[in-house]
């Protein structure tokens, strides 16, 4: 098995950390953008870029509540995202075991 077997969308440090962090939440729970940014120590611009890529793949879903300055953006992992992360970790385990 080669590294090509790993999902390229997840196989990047920042996106991997985003996915693992959100997977630590209970199924269906959401995490605010601010808390996620603080936990991962990413700039807002970087985080938005990575979230957009993962959202395009339907691994994540962003939820916006409220209007104007009171608006709050939250992120939640989809079932598809959870399954993708599980497949990624399984592939990674096999890859490392075979090295």
């Amino acid at each position, binding site marked *: 098995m080669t*590294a090509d077997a790993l999902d390229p969308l997840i196989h990047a440090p*920042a996106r991997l950390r985003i996915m693992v962090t959100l997977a630590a939440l209970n199924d269906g*729970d959401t995490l*605010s953008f601010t808390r996620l940014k603080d936990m991962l120590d990413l700039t807002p611009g*970087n985080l938005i870029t990575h979230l957009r890529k993962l959202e395009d793949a339907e691994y994540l879903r962003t939820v916006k509540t409220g209007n104007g300055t009171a608006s709050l953006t939250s992120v939640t992992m989809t079932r598809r995202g959870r399954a993708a992360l599980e497949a990624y970790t399984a592939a*990674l385990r096999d890859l*490392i075991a075979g090295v």
Partner: protein
Amino acid sequence: MNKTHDTDKSPAGDEDGELDPRDAARIIEQTEIQARRQFETSSPLAALLGAGVFLFGYGAVWFSMRDQRVYAGPAGWSLALLYGLIAVSAIVGSRVSRRATTGVSGRARRQMQAQSAAVMVAGMGAWVVEGALRHLGVSFRIVYGIFGPTVPLIALAAAAGGYAAAREKWPELGLTMAIIAVAAGSTYFGPNGAWGLTGVGCCVALMTYAAVLTVRLRRPSPVQP
């Protein structure tokens, strides 16, 4: 505003396919441990503080009554110490819980609010019964010496244990079962036993729970071969 993009610190760049598999496994492990710590609503420190409440709070009450031939109740200073320790422990516990759930919404938060309500109602129910027993003429020795230190605790632990069982939180379920067993068993030994044995037993249970929590928070990722 000099925030560094975290991926700059990573062993590989952030471009697709550049990340070494072993580095990826390390990132998963570190991130999992960090996330577990951040989202965990109970901390080893809070559990140790709880152990201190039982050892020193219940211990102080036991100490103040240890030579009583006829039950006269605990000394005021021991009750003040007990309630002071309970207040400190409650403040620390709520801070840990608030920190863990900041920014988190959805089922987890609703479950926690429901758990808090269930535990509070269970405790209040037991305290109401305690008042009713005294109102009906049951002796101070039984009401405050035996019922007081054990039954409300059993009610609180039972409510918390039900929640832990529903969420398959086994260490928390084990802790609540141990507290119930110790508190129930200690009632056979009179007021001194109820305060002393419950204090020591619950202290040991909470210290064991703190150790289990510490190990769980440091558990390595299943990705590592």
